[in-house]
């Protein structure tokens, strides 16, 4: 018997004529790990809300179909009961915390259930111990890191002892280390403590292999429901992109077995190269900071920066970016990536050293002057959205700089697939669309240098590909892109140059090939081919090697 079952569920949000969930038939069995994948607006979050009992109780709207919990049909107000059996952790850790301290936050749900003191003490103490939060119990929730906040959100849900744990893109706002730690916890909860887990995720490299079942969604419908390996085959066949690189690679090769981890992938790859896979190709020397004759777009010399609180974040670093380059800055949280980007944008002025932006010292320029030549996209696209329509948002920038339209608005709206949404309110759009509006509102001023702070956060594979393609177009037409990201797969796919920063210092500045040699920042494909073939960073490159390159290399040994 399924723990939770949806039968022919169709759901419309209030005022909407298009269903957000359409004919959903889904059974969730006790102890199962279910992974839900799909693009933005495919209905994943609506499905999560349905399972958690928030639809239609919180959102209103119209729901058709039947919902069963432990074989018993839940009708009308009874769906409210799901709240106490299903716990949900949302995407943004910032917005799901209510109380000011960690301990009070964990107790909040228990207070709502009206539990007695002693029971609350026990549950809070157990959860804090299990999640290693005891040292943070009196800490202000606003002072916690993103990973800690998400852990607290998970703790507050676990304290309520739910039967099903729904996680709606819980790692989308976290850096890879925090995301990895969080997913390790989820794996432990499922495998050792027997929790039933429904995970909705965009970053699949760390979680695809954890699932017992993968559900692929599109336009509110479940398009495929099966094992992760079969789902990979199905997705490749039907041109769906929601597969991690290793699985995509083997599914694209039409390999019967689709390994889901790098370890299993390497074993499978060994079958293609049985001779001596451990022999490395002759190493190509990685050339750092190649000198070319292009004009310098931005040059930072001996930068030092300390925040007013006294924390020294950038320590004597220099960096040179030439026109037409696509540079990606990688590094752990609090390594100084965003600070470096803000220094390059002129938002922050260095304490010592200087930044020359297109030949001009940022010390001497106001932010408004810099805005004509620098486009800066912050982590939060909502900072850009204040007008009533998408089109007005672009005109707002033009008017501030007193620039004529000359058809640039329409051109950008077309390029960024926003033309049909030009009369829509930007706040009514999805997160991916909002980000494109923010990008358009920056690009409309015609900046020669584009600085982006984690633009792929929360984007699905399809939207990432669109963004990557667009940024490549910009660099191809002579523009320069500098981007801070945690997304090594994106960096491997699109970047020309990679800068790694650690504790305020640049530890690596070279072409994208450096990713292949990296211990931690190597993309999945590089780890798969390590020791077999050099220079493979993406699925495309892997397939190319398999169709000739790598085989030739092996034969030549």
């Amino acid at each position, binding site marked *: 018997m399924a723990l939770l079952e949806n039968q022919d569920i169709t759901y419309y949000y209030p005022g909407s004529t298009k269903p957000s969930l359409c004919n959903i038939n889904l059974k969730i069995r006790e102890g199962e790990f279910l992974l839900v994948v799909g693009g933005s607006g495919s209905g994943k979050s609506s499905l999560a809300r349905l399972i958690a009992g928030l639809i239609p109780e919180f959102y209103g709207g119209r729901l058709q179909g039947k919902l069963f919990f432990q074989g018993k049909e839940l009708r009308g107000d009874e769906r409210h009961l799901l709240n106490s059996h299903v716990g949900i952790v949302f995407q943004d850790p910032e917005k*799901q915390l*209510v109380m000011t*301290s960690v301990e009070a936050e964990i107790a909040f749900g228990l*207070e*709502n259930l009206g539990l007695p003191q002693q029971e609350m003490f026990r549950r809070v103490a157990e959860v804090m111990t299990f999640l290693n939060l005891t040292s943070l119990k009196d800490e202000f929730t*606003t002072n916690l890191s993103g990973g800690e906040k998400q852990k607290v959100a998970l703790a507050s849900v676990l304290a309520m002892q739910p039967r099903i744990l729904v996680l709606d893109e819980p790692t989308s706002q976290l850096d890879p280390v925090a995301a990895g730690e969080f997913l390790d916890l989820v794996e432990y909860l499922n495998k050792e403590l027997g929790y039933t887990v429904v995970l909705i995720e965009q970053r699949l490299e760390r979680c695809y292999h954890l699932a017992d079942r993968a559900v692929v969604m599109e336009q509110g419908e479940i398009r495929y429901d099966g094992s992760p390996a079969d789902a990979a085959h199905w997705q490749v066949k039907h041109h769906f992109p929601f597969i991690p690189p290793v699985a995509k690679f083997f599914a694209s090769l039409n390999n019967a077995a689709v390994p889901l981890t790098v370890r299993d992938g390497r074993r499978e790859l060994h079958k293609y190269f049985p001779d001596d896979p451990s022999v490395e190709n002759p190493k190509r020397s990685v050339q750092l900071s190649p000198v070319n004759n292009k004009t310098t777009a931005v040059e930072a010399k001996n930068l030092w920066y300390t925040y007013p609180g006294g924390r020294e974040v950038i320590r004597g670093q220099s960096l040179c970016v030439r026109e037409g380059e696509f540079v990606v800055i990688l590094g752990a949280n609090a390594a100084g990536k965003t600070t470096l980007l803000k220094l390059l944008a002129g938002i922050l002025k260095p304490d010592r050293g200087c930044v020359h932006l297109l030949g001009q010292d940022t010390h001497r320029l*106001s932010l408004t002057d810099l805005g004509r030549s620098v486009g800066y996209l*912050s982590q939060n696209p909502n900072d850009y959205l204040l007008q009533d329509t998408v089109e007005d948002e672009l005109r707002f920038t033009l008017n*501030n700089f007193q620039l004529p339209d000359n058809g640039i608005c329409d051109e950008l709206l077309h390029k960024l697939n926003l033309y049909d949404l030009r009369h829509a309110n930007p706040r009514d759009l999805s997160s991916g669309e909002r980000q494109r509006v923010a990008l358009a509102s920056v690009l409309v001023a015609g900046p020669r240098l584009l600085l982006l702070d984690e633009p792929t956060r929360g984007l699905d594979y399809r939207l990432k590909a669109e963004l990557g393609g667009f940024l490549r177009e910009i660099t191809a037409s002579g523009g320069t892109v500098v981007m801070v990201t945690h997304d090594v797969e994106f960096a491997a796919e699109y970047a020309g140059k990679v800068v790694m920063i650690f504790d305020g210092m640049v530890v690596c500045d070279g072409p994208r090939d450096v990713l292949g040699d990296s211990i931690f920042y190597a993309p999945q494909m590089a780890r798969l081919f390590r020791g077999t073939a050099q220079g493979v960073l993406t699925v495309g490159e892997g397939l190319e090697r398999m169709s000739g390159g790598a085989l030739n290399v092996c034969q030549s040994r």
Partner: protein
Amino acid sequence: MLEQLSYKSKGTFLQNVHTIASLTYFAALLLLPLIFTHPFYLLGVFLVGIMAVVVSDSAAECMPFLVMGIWVAVFVMLLNPLIVQHGNTVLIYGPELPVIGRFRISLEAICYGAAMGVRLMTIIIAFALYNAVVHPDKVTAFVSRFAWKSSLVVSLVTRMIPTIARDLCSAREVMQLRGVDFSTGTFRERLKKYSWLMEVLLLSSLEGSLATAEAMQARGFGSGRRSSYHRELVRPRDYFFFLSGITALIIGICAWLKGYAVFAFYPKLDSFAGGSELIWLVVIIFCLIIPLILSWGWKHWPYLRTRI
């Protein structure tokens, strides 16, 4: 300044006192200067406040408030003699002014201004110290036992302040890079530019509040009768603290009712009665100082730490 609003746990004695005990102590520190008019009494409580700041290692947190308080106090001290034309002991006669007549500065007005300045400083110190040593969640948890909706609102607002401050900074940077120059234009134009900033903050806050409400409902908020979580232990130090605060408050009120803590500035300064009125003050200060002595002992004397 906003950063100073955040409580920082330092593990000090004053931070480790039961909420009821610390609230009682701070009630005494706040109410006594409000009812006292006698300059010696005001000075006495003021000095206890300063000592408490030092003993609780809260100087860094309180300093911005103290600096602001000094300016306001000096302003009050200077403004009172200029505006208030009462007092028999005139020190300076000025020119004839319309409506208020002949301008004059009296000794009584100067003294009253100085006393009010000290009172203001004492109240600011009490607030700054409260902010530095009392964990807001402990207070909201305490209040939530009888007013949980109000305490929840306070908690949500407290969480929102640093978030809004961060969002404001980020939105301002973004707008400047989109060509909005906040430093130029007429007053009306600047007002319009700042209204854009407010619009971004308002829209983002509204969206954020919807997400928070959803998370609250998912955790059973409003599903039925609520209980209240509190996990505070009661130690000997809490009794000392509570008794000190409540005794100081009661004796202070008695001194005020008996007229010892009252001082008339106008039309002529009262004369100081001498020893009898000061005995009450000594007892009040002694009561208020006991927790500070314990705090010092707790820090420097491990044996005492284990006993209280």
